[in-house]
């Protein structure tokens, strides 16, 4: 277990190596170093996980201090890693899925001239992400947090020659940093009132010092939530994620689907004590999740771009996780994070293969009939899609999402409204998922497949497909074997959900409704895109339909609103004041002197006679003054 530091160390080494010497290596060597470093890190985490299961450390937590980072007055911040079931599971998923995506990237990016830069960024990302997860104090967590944000920015703008990519990258960086600002203030508040930034000490002190409902806890909870919604693209800061799809597809899979965007979920789960002390903040988390999952679901329904549709789907699914956090179903959120990492990564990888096969075509309405052309892609994509929609019994998504939907009501913090929204969300998910599948793989072929993915790309997909199928069997509902391996393990780090048995509906009933919503969603998608596509087309052409379509497609007009409310005023001010208004005060003084000088200057005519006259006149006045006054 004392190999813990190796998990981030390998990717960092990979990054340094690639950054310093990457351009001198062959593409193959770059891929090997890039994927290998993450592979080693995945191996180490698997080894540590094994050890953890076999002989768990005392208290199910292990801390490793690397060195003393900041030590000022009462502030002690070591670079230290903290391993408990929560961070272990997250780390495992990040390194393993990360490794698979790195392997995939070796195929996907093999033609790109900047492959070494790509792998350098990706390695740096994995290192930062792992640091984020393993950090024992909030500042180290922030280091990882900003690190992943940076990598996200760099990778979205990876193809920097196109200004649009750069714009998307900047937007992602800035919007997430808006959230980070709130989180930083939250950190200050926590340190001010609890006197430490070590997460575990913080939790203990908070539970000890703050009563339930304490305003400080609420403030801290809301401020941290601000950071979380920024990173996890939740309302109201979700606008960056769809644009982030400008990056290479493996990046979208790794960063903007599987790992980084769930950092907000991790943060809230990590700081769950604060939220337990602040029910109103926790309720806000739930509301944010519920609102996001619906709004993003509608937006996903209207996107023509396959990656953007998936991006909105990601936003929506993270909304589920937030909803789970909001009702205190901590383990359910992490469970959904894990299964989502599998199937959403797979969906993106599949989308990447499709896009590459079709000359970088991303518009789904120009695809179609790819079922026969790309069978491996089709089957893995279908599995992932079913998992996303939550097809009962066989897919991982069914178990994780079903758990969230049920606990949205059954938990003691749950509410009927949450449950309704969650079930409606299942309908939306199912509808947009099958819309994507139908548009891409069914119907007639509209474009030509010019290239088929190689083994490096298909093998990771198959592994992920398997995981998307079986990954859910670690926690099944009561009526289906009642396995709770996953939740039991997590309960060493996170409190179990408090089920309000008195009023709770049965798990079976909830799952029944979920299945029904799923089928309705499927039926709607089938009707709209296979049975009667012309009806859909006419619907979007009608006045109301068109307006609604545009409104949803533009993400409920949020970008528009933010541009006008926030972005433009700042830009306007920067442009207008580029010359620095304060400077004009000083130049104004200078101008005044200049003006005065101009006045006095006129008396200096350079003519002797003028001076003589002035002297004479002066004397006259002087004598007159002496004589008559």
């Amino acid at each position, binding site marked *: 277990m004392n190999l813990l530091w190796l998990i981030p160390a390998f990717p960092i080494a990979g990054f340094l190596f690639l950054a310093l010497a990457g351009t001198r290596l062959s593409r193959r060597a770059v891929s090997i170093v890039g994927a290998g470093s993450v592979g080693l890190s995945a191996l180490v985490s698997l080894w540590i996980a094994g050890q953890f299961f076999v002989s768990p450390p005392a208290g199910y937590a292990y801390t490793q201090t690397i060195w003393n980072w900041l030590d000022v007055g009462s502030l002690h911040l070591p670079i230290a890693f903290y391993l408990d079931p929560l961070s272990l599971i997250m780390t495992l998923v990040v390194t393993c899925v990360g490794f698979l995506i790195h392997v995939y990237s070796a195929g996907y990016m093999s033609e790109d001239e900047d492959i070494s830069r790509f792998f350098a960024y990706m390695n740096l990302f994995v290192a930062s992400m792992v640091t984020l997860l393993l950090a024992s104090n909030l500042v180290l967590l922030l280091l990882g947090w900003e690190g992943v944000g940076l990598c996200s920015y760099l990778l979205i703008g990876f193809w920097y020659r196109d200004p649009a990519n750069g714009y998307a990258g900047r937007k992602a960086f800035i919007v997430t940093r808006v959230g980070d600002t709130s989180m930083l203030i939250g950190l200050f508040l926590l340190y001010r009132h609890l006197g430490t930034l070590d997460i575990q000490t913080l939790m203990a002190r908070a539970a000890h010092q703050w009563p339930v409902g304490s305003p400080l806890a609420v403030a801290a909870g809301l401020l941290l939530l601000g950071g979380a919604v920024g990173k996890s693209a939740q309302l109201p800061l979700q606008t960056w994620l769809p644009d982030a799809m400008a990056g290479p597809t493996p990046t979208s899979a790794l960063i903007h689907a599987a790992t980084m965007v769930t950092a907000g979920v991790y943060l809230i789960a990590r700081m769950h004590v604060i939220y337990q002390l602040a029910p109103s903040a926790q309720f806000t988390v739930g509301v944010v999740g519920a609102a996001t999952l619906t709004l993003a679901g509608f937006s996903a329904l209207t996107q023509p771009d396959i990656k953007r549709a998936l991006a909105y789907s990601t936003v929506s699914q993270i909304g589920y996780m937030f909803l789970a956090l909001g009702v205190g179903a901590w383990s359910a959120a992490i469970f959904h994070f894990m299964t989502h990492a599998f199937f959403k990564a797979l969906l993106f990888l599949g989308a990447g293969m499709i896009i590459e096969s079709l000359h970088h075509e991303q518009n789904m309405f120009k695809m179609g009939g790819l079922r026969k052309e790309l069978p491996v892609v089709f089957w893995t994509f279908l599995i992932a899609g079913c998992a996303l929609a939550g097809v009962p019994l066989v897919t991982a998504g069914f178990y994780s999402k079903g758990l969230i939907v049920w606990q949205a009501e059954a938990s003691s913090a749950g509410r009927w409204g949450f449950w309704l929204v969650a079930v409606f969300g299942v309908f939306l998910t199912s509808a947009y998922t099958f819309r994507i599948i139908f548009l891409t793989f069914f119907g007639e072929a509209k474009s030509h497949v010019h290239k088929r993915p190689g083994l490096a790309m298909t093998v990771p997909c198959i592994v992920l497909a398997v995981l998307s199928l079986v990954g859910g069997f670690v926690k099944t509902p009561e009526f289906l074997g009642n396995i709770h391996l996953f939740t039991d393990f997590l309960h060493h780090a996170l409190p179990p959900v408090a089920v309000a048995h008195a009023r709770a509906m049965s798990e079976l009933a909830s799952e029944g409704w979920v299945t029904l919503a799923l089928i309705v969603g499927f039926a709607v998608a089938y009707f709209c895109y296979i049975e009667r596509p012309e009806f859909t087309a006419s619907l979007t052409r009608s006045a109301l339909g068109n307006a609604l379509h545009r409104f949803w497609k533009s993400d409920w007009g949020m970008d528009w609103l933010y541009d006008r409310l926030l972005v433009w005023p700042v830009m306007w001010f920067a442009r207008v004041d580029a010359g620095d208004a304060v400077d004009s005060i000083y130049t104004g003084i200078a101008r005044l002197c200049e003006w005065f000088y101009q006045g006095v200057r006129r008396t200096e005519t350079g003519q002797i006679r003028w001076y003589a006259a002035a002297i*004479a006149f002066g004397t*006259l006045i002087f004598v007159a003054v002496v*004589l008559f006054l």
Partner: protein
Amino acid sequence: MNILFYVASAVAIIATFLMLTRMNAVHALLYLIVSLLAVALVFYTLGAPFVAALEIIIYAGAIMVLFVFVVMMLNLGRAAEAQEREWQRPSLWVGPSVLAVVLIAEVIYVLTHADTRMFGAEVVGPHQVAQSLFGPYLIGVELASMLLLGGLVGAFHLGRRLEEKR
């Protein structure tokens, strides 16, 4: 003797006035010399024979000769006279004249309110002048000699550069 003073004064004033209104530089110089000679006479009547002599020798003699030389070197002819006439517009006289009249008025005002004693007709001869010049005013003499040296060097320098340029 008094009459001599007033006549000399009148000559000095008239000659100076005429000097001012001449357009030809040589004519003006001649009137200036007349004015200086008249002033020398005034000095004499005031009992200062030594400075009267100096006035004639140095002012009317040496300094005016310098002027004459310069006028000759500049070789001013009729064209210069015409130009002079063009420069001297009548309106130009007004302002300075007013200024001068006011000045005189002030002087008269001062003089009428001041000491009106007559001069004792006492001659202060060269001997006394020399005694105070080389007695209490010795430093002044040294300074004056330095000034003259400065003027000499300056004039020489300015003149020499002119030669080279030519």
